[in-house]
Structures are given as structure tokens and as C-alpha cells.
């Protein structure tokens, strides 16, 4: 069974625990600037949006890489960057339509979400379940469920 990160921005409070968990997993430091998941704060609308790689099946980044540094982790479906192969050319960052593969000055390589080998730490750290790790076939189902609930006649109307 393949699993996916499922993000519900409406539940996000902007606490950045996900960014700390991600940076700790990948760099051993609490350092949001090196997190592969980012929470954006739309202050004037009072909204937060956690955002990271969705692991496209036909991944643009993987196709664009001239040195085949990006491969599929067969266990998780994650597109993973090999630091040994990456030359830091950044072509993948141009190819990705979502901007979720990024260059890191400190290593000279690109970085992206690798689903932590199947135990994504951002989801584990999120206090409000805005980020969950679910059966890939179920992505979006919580919103479908909410819409379905709205489509029901209200209890008042049926009474």
C-alpha cells in the first residue's frame, strides 16, 4: 500500500512544529530554514498553509535532472535526491511546477521531501492533524466527506 501526505490547511495554526521535526530528521538541528516542508502565513486573511512535495508519479524534477540524481524510493513512492549524484545545477527547481524542490546553499545540493523513509516526521509532530500520512487512495477524502455532509438535508428540514 502506498501512502501520501495529506494536508488540511484549515487545521494549521502556524506553529512550525513540522518544520522543526523535518529539519531535525534531516540535519540533526532544530532549524526551520532547512525544513523541506514550509508553512506559509497569509496574515491578512488569517490563514496558514503547510506546503511540500506531493511526490508526483510523473515527476518533473526527476525527468529534468541531467545526472539522474533523483530516483523513486520503491517502498514509499518518494522521489529522493542522491547527494552523491546531485551537481546542484537547479534545473529540477525550474521544472517543478510547485516549487517544492529547492537548492540549499549550505550543501550545494537540492533538497526535497523524502517522506522520511515512510515515517514522515512532520505528520508525527503536527499537533492539530493538519498534516497526516494516509493511504494514497484516500487523499482528499476528508474534504469529500465534509462536502457530502453538507449535501445532506438538515435535521431540521427532514423533521
Amino acid at each position, binding site marked *: 500500500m502506498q501512502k501520501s501526505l495529506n494536508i488540511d490547511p484549515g487545521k494549521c*495554526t*502556524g*506553529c*512550525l*512544529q513540522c518544520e*522543526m*521535526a523535518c*529539519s*531535525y530528521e534531516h*540535519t*540533526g*538541528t*532544530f*532549524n*526551520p*530554514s*532547512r525544513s523541506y516542508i514550509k508553512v506559509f502565513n497569509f*496574515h*491578512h*486573511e*488569517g*490563514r*496558514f498553509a503547510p506546503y511540500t512535495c506531493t511526490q508526483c508519479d510523473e515527476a518533473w524534477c526527476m525527468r529534468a535532472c541531467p545526472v539522474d540524481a533523483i530516483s523513486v524510493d520503491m517502498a514509499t513512492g518518494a522521489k529522493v535526491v542522491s547527494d552523491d549524484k546531485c551537481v546542484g545545477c537547479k534545473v529540477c527547481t525550474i521544472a517543478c511546477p510547485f516549487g517544492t524542490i529547492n537548492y540549499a546553499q*549550505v550543501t550545494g545540493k537540492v533538497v526535497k521531501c523524502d517522506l522520511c523513509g515512510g515515517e514522515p516526521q512532520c505528520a508525527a*509532530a503536527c*499537533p*492539530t492533524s493538519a498534516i497526516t500520512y494516509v493511504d494514497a487512495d484516500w487523499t482528499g477524502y476528508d474534504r469529500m466527506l465534509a462536502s457530502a455532509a453538507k449535501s445532506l438535508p438538515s435535521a431540521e428540514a427532514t423533521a
Partner: protein
Amino acid sequence: MSWTRKILRVDLSKGTCTPEPLNMEWANHYLGSRGLAAKYLTEEVDPKCDALGPDNNMIMATGPLTGTMASTSGRYTVSCKGPLTGAIACSNSGGFFGAELKFAGWDMIIFVGKSEKPVYLLIENDKVALRSAEHMWGKTAWETDDILHQTHQDPQMRIACIGRAAENGCLYAGVINDKHRAAGRSGVGTVMASKNLKAVAIRGTQGIGNIEDVGAFVSSTNDGKAVLAENAVTGQGLPAYGTQVLMNVINGVGALPAHNMRDVGFEGAENISAEAMAEPRKSDGKPNLTTNAACFGCTIACGRISTVDPTHFSVKDKPQYQGASGGLEYEAAWSLGADTGVDDLDALTYVNFLCNEDGFDPISYGSTVAAAMELFESGVITTQETGGIDLKFGSAEAFVAVTEQFVAGEGFGKDLGLGSKRLCEKYERPELSMTVKGQEFPAYDPRGIQGIGLNYATSNRGACHLRGYTVASEILGIPVKTEQTDSDGKAELVKAFQDATALVDSAGLCIFTTFAWGMDNIAPQIDAACEGDWSVENCLETGERIWNMERLFNEAAGFTADDDTLPKRLLEEAIKSGPTEGQVSKLGEMLPQYYEARGWTADGKIPDATRQRLSL
């Protein structure tokens, strides 16, 4: 260890920025943030200095847990001698600025001297520089934040700055970070303005990687988060309703002061409560509350993000105030609302936006306006002084008008910047000022809740609920219920809360965790993060040491036991009606017991034996 072991000394007179090692002996004795800044301040500043002169220092300090994965780890403090009180001031703020300072590799910044011209401090990790802020002087905190983000083209930059209130000399101006979080009390922003320092802009990308025992830290912080999630206050009440959950509760138990604390109980409380904030309004069908929001690392997320009704008179032709921004917290809703008698939720939210935009403390501001309203009612001041504003209790129009005058630094607004004590002295009615050591009261009546009155009277930064929140015990029953109108046992209760709070503040954590956490939850997190022994006992003793250190600063500044008091109104005028009818503050009974519990002399001095016990 989790301290970066590095501090930045900025000499504004000379224009120099110099790194220096953190004094680890002091860190081991005073932990960080509030405690450690108090130590540096006491060692480096003459307590008798002019708070707004170049000899006062201003310290921005993080704690060892700031910026880590511990819940609520976003806190930092701004410490100095306070201009409102003349006492030691330490204001605590959340948001994201504190963690960024830590990520840039600094435990604290010590600002000394005074710059000749307006400057801001730019920090990019080890690279630090003072730059001209002449183009930003006169701008609001929101404008300053926008200008700096634009100038440096860095959306991730975190900024703390002052608004126009501080520049205009308002004595209770704060430091605003991340646009709507504030080191709000005691005039720390006024001190920043006195140094000609407009802003501190930080980008930190180094992170924190020097946790003493990472395994134990991850496990103790995870345990802590689970406790917060399961607790009714931190897991449900605060995220859903924010601190505003208290408005109806405190009004219900007969402890909500109103009309410059002349009355207890406010008939309009419901209209300005958390419940009212969640109610959809008629004009656009949206509630005042847009969402809750967290500070850095916080798994509680009590923050309010609100909008004002776009058809409301206060913002009608002002699109810049029609978006979402920091909404009402309980203390602000009380001071801006109940204390002034204004129960117009939109007017209060708008005034709260202005508090954030121009950087001034809503508690002191609302209370000062309330005092002005009582002066107006008694005819001491008239429309001649107020520039034609009919400054009556309960008038939202007058309140909004006088606030707009105030932020522009015009007319009667200048008087309001004096604070309640100086305002009432100016108009020769000092008894109408509801202050301790010159600082205005928060939202709990000391007659209706006895312990909090003792805490106000003895707080080292003047009247303040955040120095020892005994309301937790006296109203909410945390950790154990004590009777709100009893004075028995309150001396020990106040001491215990004050000491524990000093420790929590110094760790870099938020005091709201203590609705759920005891020291047995907190100490293991500090112990895992830091070198040395941070047992429960050592944590409590450190808290007590910090409290006494602050007291010593105040003693040297000239404060005596005579200053540990409350206004006559609260000691002599009984509550007129409601569940606490007939109560006055029993401070006279509690104060000697408190001095004894602290090991102080009958006249409130710290004797040698107590100093030695606490290694002071």
C-alpha cells in the same frame, strides 16, 4: 546545553557590535531570558539611572529552550529599567522573533548607550550591522515591518520594532514583533526609542543543534505536548476561545473590575466575550474571530486572528484595517472594554489593532483612558482638554476618537501617554489612578480575588498578573482550588506562583503551559536540554533566586515596603454588589505573612541569611 553561549553587545553610542561569550556561571544560576537578563542588568546598570537616559541598557534575551521543539518555545524577553515604574522591567513576547534570534546564533543582545541618529540592527547569523533608520522614524510598527521586508527581499526575516507611541514618548510603549506579538508592558519600547533604535531585523539559518541529551529531550518534550493536548484548558479551552474564555467566567465570580475599578461586574461583558467573538455578525455573516494561531513551536495556539466588521464606523473608510490581524486577548478586552465601559466588540478590536500597529500596551492604555473618563465625569477635565471629545464611560465613538488622537501624538493623546499615575497626578486626583509602582492593573479585581491582589502589590514590575497568576488556583482550581475571597494561605500561594513563573519565563517557555504542566513536567525538559542539574528543586530555587535578584534591583533603585501596596479604592471601598459584595483587599493581613514566607524582614528587606541561602 542549548544555549548558543554567545551574546551580542551593541554599543549604540559608539556604533559598534561586539560578540562576547555568555557568562556560563551566571547561566547556570539564572538559566536564561528573564533571569539571566536580570543578572546582566543588575551587574551593568545603576538602578538609580534615568530609565530613558543612555545609562540604561536594553536586553533582548532568549531562554535555553527558545527555538527548540519544546512546546511554546517561541518566547523571548525585553529587559531594562522601566520608565513607567522606575523598577526593573521585563516584558515577554511570543511570535517568531525570539526563535530566529537563537537560530542566528545568539542567546541575547545587550544594547548600551544611545545612537545619535535613528538606526536599526540587522542580523544575518554572524553578520551584524547597524544601519540608518531615519527613513523609518515616524512610521508605525506595521509600516516598519513592511519596509524592512521589502528592503531585504526576505520574507523569512523576523522583525521586532517600535511604533509611533514609543517615539512620541508614551511611557508604556512596547516592542512589537511579527506585527502583532508584543513585549508589551512597562515601557520597554519607550526605552528602545530613547536609544534611537527603531528595529531589530533577524535572519537565522544556523538552527539549534547542541541539545545536551537529545533522546531525553525528544521524549520529555513529547510527554509535555501530550499533557497539554489532554488538558481541558490547554487542549480545548485556549485553542477554541483564547484567553477571552475568561471574560464571562471572571464576571460571573464577581472579580471583573469596571469603570476604572469603581465597580465590579460589567453588564456589557457578554458582548465583548469569546462567545461574542465567535458569533456571525449581520453585515457580512462572518464572526469577529477568523482563526486561532500559534506562536513559534506552540501546540496550544491560543492566539486570536480577528477582523473588524467592515461596515463599523471605526474602519468604514479605512481598508487597511479591514483585513485580519491580531485580535482581542482577555486582558486587552477588559482594559479597553470593561474598564472604559465600552462594550462595542468592533471598536475594541480596532483599538487593539492600533495598539499593535503603533506599539503600546493595551492594559495600561485602557486603564489610563478609564482614569481619564473618571476625571472627565467628575469635571476635573472637560472637552477643553480633550479637544472636544465627550470622553464619557461607555462611549465607543469617544474612545476611538481619543485613540486616534493618541497614536498621532496630538492634543490630549499626549496626556494619555503619561499613564494613569502621572495623568491623575497632573490633574491633582492621584487617588483615581489604579496602579502599583506606577503600572496599571490587569483584569482581576484584588478585592474579589485576594491572592492576585497580594501578587500585584509585590510584583517586581508593578501591577501584573503574569508575575504570579494565582487566578489559576483561586478561580480555576489549578493546581488546587483555594477560596478566592480568603486571605489564608495566600502568602505561600503567591510566593509559589511567583517563583515558578520566574523559572518558566527564564527557560523560554510560555506561562500558559502551567495550566497543564507542573514543575515535574518542565524540569525534565530543561534538564535534558541544558548542562548541569535542573531538578525540580533546583528549578524552584532558581525561580526564587531570580525573584529576589529583581527585588534587589528595585531596592537599590529606591523602592521600599511602602511601595508594596494597592490604591486606597481597593483597600477601603467595598465591592458594591454581586457575588463578592462587601469585599475589600486584605493586603494588610497578607503582606507580613508574605514577607515571612519569603524570608524577608518585617520591612520587606532581604536579609543576609536569605541572600546566602539563594547564593545572591
